[in-house]
């Protein structure tokens, strides 16, 4: 891999003042924690309509709904040069269809509107999307590359919203050529912390499969997604990139790795109806994953690797990491402490003259355990 370092994209030293949207989401929180360890970043502002769920040191949280006029005032007042949008809902079980649409489509439009204008300070826009953009169909290629579009129009609300949101971002990129706009399409994420459709499914005692199908599925580890967002903020040329770990696994292989039993309980015909009734029984499989359980999906991840990014985990390693965590979780149950945001405490820690700030970064974050990228 020695050759690759010479290929690395020019480092963008302009990234100084960052706005993270969706601070209360898993990705927003993780990313803000990671960004805090970069000393060259002067300001990290996080916006969301609900309180953060992760402990943050110097990130400033502003509670604001997706109103573009308010967002625009924040962007201009803080002279934000980089906006990282992590707020996309990519699992239809996490929010009702109406809320998801509001967030994914209307929310994206509002954030883009807040970054528009010839005098806008924004120079870089990073948008976290999902490989649900491609869908999963019978006549798909085995590896989607970034320039491909889905062969059929989306038939779930969530996929429609993701396509629409990306369309809005692409239009924004066209109209604002001097803003470097990057879209990261992340594959199904696995990891000990993150809550996705597949982490949930793999935690079931028996993992449901569609009878007669063994789909190919590609994963990416949660830490790699956070690193990818950082990497996009600092190094990457504008454009669309797939973010997915090396290796496409068969679902049977995945189930084998986590040591579970495959339950081919879903009928090959009428799968939608069957998952609907399973959902009522507590086996929660989101609609957009049903087709994936039948046809699977793989993406070509070489373009992003070509920018100098190195994944910490392959798909297989991500699955094994999750299964290690699942074994440990049975022992560790109930020992971890939940974080709750207390405005007074956070403000005291940030602004009080009595707080001594000698050890920046001691609270850690994803970046604390490794060398910071670049600089």
């Amino acid at each position, binding site marked *: 891999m020695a*050759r690759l370092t010479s290929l690395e994209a020019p480092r963008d030293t302009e990234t100084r003042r960052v706005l993270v949207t969706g601070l209360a989401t898993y990705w927003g929180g993780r990313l803000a924690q990671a960004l805090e360890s970069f000393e060259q970043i002067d300001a990290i502002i996080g916006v969301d309509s609900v309180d953060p769920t992760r402990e943050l040191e110097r990130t400033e949280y502003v509670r604001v709904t997706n109103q573009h006029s308010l967002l625009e005032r924040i962007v201009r007042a803080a002279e934000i040069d980089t906006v990282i949008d992590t707020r996309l809902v990519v699992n239809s079980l996490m929010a009702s269809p109406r809320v998801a649409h509001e967030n994914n489509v209307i929310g994206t439009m509002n954030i883009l509107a807040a970054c528009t204008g010839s005098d806008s300070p924004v120079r870089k826009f990073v948008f976290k999307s999902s490989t649900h953009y491609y869908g999963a169909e019978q*006549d*798909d290629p085995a590896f989607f590359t970034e320039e491909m579009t889905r062969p059929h129009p989306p038939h779930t609300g969530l996929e429609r919203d993701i396509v629409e949101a990306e369309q809005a971002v692409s239009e924004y990129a066209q109209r604002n050529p001097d803003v470097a706009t990057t879209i990261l399409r992340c594959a199904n994420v696995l990891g000990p912390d993150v809550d996705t459709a597949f982490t949930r499914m793999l935690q079931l005692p028996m993992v449901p499969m569609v009878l*007669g199908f063994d789909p190919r599925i590609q994963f990416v580890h949660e830490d790699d997604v956070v690193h990818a967002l950082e990497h996009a903020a600092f190094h990457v040329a504008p454009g669309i990139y797939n973010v997915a770990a*090396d290796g*496409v696994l068969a679902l049977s292989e995945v189930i084998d790795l986590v040591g579970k039993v495959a339950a081919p309980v879903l009928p090959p015909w009428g799968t939608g109806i069957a998952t609907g009734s399973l959902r009522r029984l507590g086996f929660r499989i989101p609609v957009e994953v049903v087709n994936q359980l039948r046809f699977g999906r793989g993406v070509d991840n070489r373009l992003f690797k070509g920018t100098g990014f190195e994944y910490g985990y392959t798909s297989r390693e991500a699955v094994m990491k999750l299964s290690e965590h699942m074994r440990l979780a049975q022992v560790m149950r109930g020992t971890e402490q939940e974080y709750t945001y207390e405005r007074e405490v956070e403000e005291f820690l940030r602004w009080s003259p009595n707080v001594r700030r000698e050890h920046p970064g001691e609270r850690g974050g994803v970046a604390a355990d490794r060398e910071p990228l670049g600089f």
Partner: protein
Amino acid sequence: MADEKRTSLADHAVPAEEAGGAGAGQQLPERRPAEVMRELLPAIEPDRRLNDWGRSERVEGFMDATLVEFFYRYWFRTEVEGIDNVPSESGALLVSNHAGALPPDAPMIAKAIREEHPNPRPLYLTVEHFFKGYPGFSMLIPKVGGVAAHPANVHRLLYDERQLVLVFPEGRKGTEKLYRDRYRLRRFGRGGFVEAAMRAEAQIVPTCVVGAEESAPIFGHVDVLRKLTGLIYFPITPTFPWLGPFGMLGYLPAKFKIRFLEPIDTVELGGAEAAEDKALIQTLSQEIRALIQENLHEMLAKRKSVWLG
């Protein structure tokens, strides 16, 4: 319904910019040169039994040691000519005639390369998208090296991974033809296979198979049962459907002869740039078809007996 699912290698070859849709307007990052992209391919994980295409060493090895071995060696007594025409390094597209209700030609060609070639390599077989959507087939076909006949798949295999790919341009028209039409090549699709090979700058190896037609003759089709089962066709053969699904494997012991012809160098013909030239592609496709047909006739003329060769 079934007709819509017909697959041609040329069907999907529409770049996103022309197709329109989301993301079409946004600039795409520049692709790096082929050698770099090849280097960026995922490394092989030695602990895995499957590869990224879903091909399973275990399932394939099991089939190879049992069924395929039996048919190749004892049942069809396969004879191979011109194995040296299959390149041992770069990517190459093998183009063959196609016959038989459950075609035995593909596994026999793959086995011939495994057995006879100085550098035995896996052979990927392009299949219709139909198989990805049919329960059972969808599980089994990728495990033994089947890959959906999508131009992007063929391109990745030939160009990036430099593998051997087998394609039957006749497609279903070849396998569903009746016994009385044996060894009459059907139309070679829309020449999509030539285009795919040109784009990937891979060699084309025309391949002729004699024997498959007689080993699994089709006497007729039952359309009602085809619709009921959702299969692409429902043939009447000497053993199917009389012996149930396994009747599909009831091959007659015809003598198999496989002949690999001189490879055609697509780089000499203009390579990736010439892939846009529809006239050239049609001509080439027809020439390859004629070449295979001619060789088939020659092989048939020399054959004294269907069963003994």
